[in-house]
């Protein structure tokens, strides 16, 4: 342990609440927007719902850099794969690519993901763990706030819900995580993926709006009386003038 000097900054994590749900006609993904560095909030409004392909999105919990880079890598590979097959990418393909990569790194890539999308076989939802195991379920939650969110889901989930009902349920599950888990906070982002459209609602709900100050400590000009005023110009001469060109190549 390093007793002198300063300790290394801890990796920025998204202690988080993310969740997803399959409804009649698609999937709804939800996430909070707090990113923490140890016990300090590093980003009050970060985006945890990542684009994988036009019909597939992925929420990420765990180490922020890992989720960002992993989803971008698989998104890129999936686009190439789709060009090769000539078809819209399938959620199961994205799932396989993600789990095989995470297993290869034996859990050292700290990315816990909720992958959802719609393809020719209908809507699908997967949860993917850092060691490379996946679960295919109708509703999933991940992150430090997952227990709070799962409590909401277990109480109110029904199969084949309508879109508005599903959005409200996801919103409530993320809110449960935001208010009951220290690692989650700020706003609620939603992403509704259906056959015809993708609604990326950021923010869907500003659950933690910054308050407006009711008072002000500023003093108006003239509050303090001025007795005397002296203006003394400084005589400076130019000693050296250099030009530093910018590297704009």
């Amino acid at each position, binding site marked *: 342990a390093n007793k002198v000097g300063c300790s290394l900054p801890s990796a920025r994590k998204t202690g988080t609440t993310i969740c997803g749900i399959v409804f009649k006609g698609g999937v709804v993904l939800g996430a909070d927007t707090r990113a923490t560095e140890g016990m300090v909030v590093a980003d009050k409004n970060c985006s945890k719902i990542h684009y994988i392909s036009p019909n597939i999105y992925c929420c990420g919990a765990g180490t922020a850099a890992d989720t960002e880079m992993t989803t971008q890598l698989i998104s890129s590979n999936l686009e190439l794969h789709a060009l090769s097959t000539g078809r819209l990418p399938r959620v199961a393909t994205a799932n396989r690519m993600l*789990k095989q990569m995470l297993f290869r790194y034996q859990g050292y890539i700290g990315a816990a993901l909720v992958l959802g999308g719609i393809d020719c076989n209908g809507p699908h939802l997967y*949860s993917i763990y*850092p*060691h*490379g*195991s*996946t*679960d295919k*379920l109708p509703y999933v939650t991940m992150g430090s706030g997952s*227990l709070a969110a799962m409590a909401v889901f277990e109480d109110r989930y029904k199969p084949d819900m309508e879109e508005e009902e599903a959005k409200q349920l996801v919103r409530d599950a993320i809110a449960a995580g935001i208010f009951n888990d220290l690692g989650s906070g700020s706003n609620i982002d939603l992403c509704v993926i259906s056959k015809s459209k993708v609604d990326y609602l950021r923010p869907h709900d500003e659950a933690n709006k910054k308050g407006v100050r009711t008072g002000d400590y500023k003093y108006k000009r003239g509050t303090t009386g001025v007795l005397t005023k002296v203006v003394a110009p400084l005589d400076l001469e130019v000693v050296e003038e250099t030009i530093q060109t910018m590297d704009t190549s």
Partner: protein
Amino acid sequence: HCRMGQEERTSGGGLSTTILAIEFDGGVVLGSDSRVSAGASVVNRVMNKLSQLHDKIYCALSGSAADAQTIAEVVNYQLDVHSMEIGEDPQVRSAATLVRNISYKYKEELSAHLIVAGWDRRKGGQVYATLNGLLTRQPFAVGGSGSSYVYGFVDAEYRKGMSKEECQKFVVSTLSLAMNRDGSSGGVAYLVTIDEHCTEEKVILGNDLPTFYDQPPKYP
């Protein structure tokens, strides 16, 4: 029937579990619970741990979820290639050997135990255990953390020459007892019956499982 200890890795999805497979004349019955836990939290309460390797060959997963799922998927792929090469359905022993080869080669890195069971034309129903890289055919095999609680039951209740229905009842009873006593097992029971003519998958919900002497005592 060799007793096998069970090591557990408790990170992101452990499948510490109850799994078993039993052979009858003309086929096999596989059974598993459905709980996947990460530490004290249950992350999936309805996971089907009976993974299909081929039309008439299944394997039961236990131990680390990531390791077990990956082994099953790799062997599924290898069996597809192998069966295309030989031009017919693969033998159960071949599937078990593929699983065993991975388990043995990477035994220091992996923490999963797969029981392979199925039916083929040559030897009928077979059950193979592949713990730690061994390959042994047994009349029945149990595995997972919950198996410790039911060794007495299976050793006492097993009889040679049970029929398909008796085997199914045996599997369901064993699972019910283990799920009751093991914290890492629970949820629903999945049952797969494989014989010459069909492969049948069944789910038995919690309240349909057989109950044993569970009632609290009636003291005045």
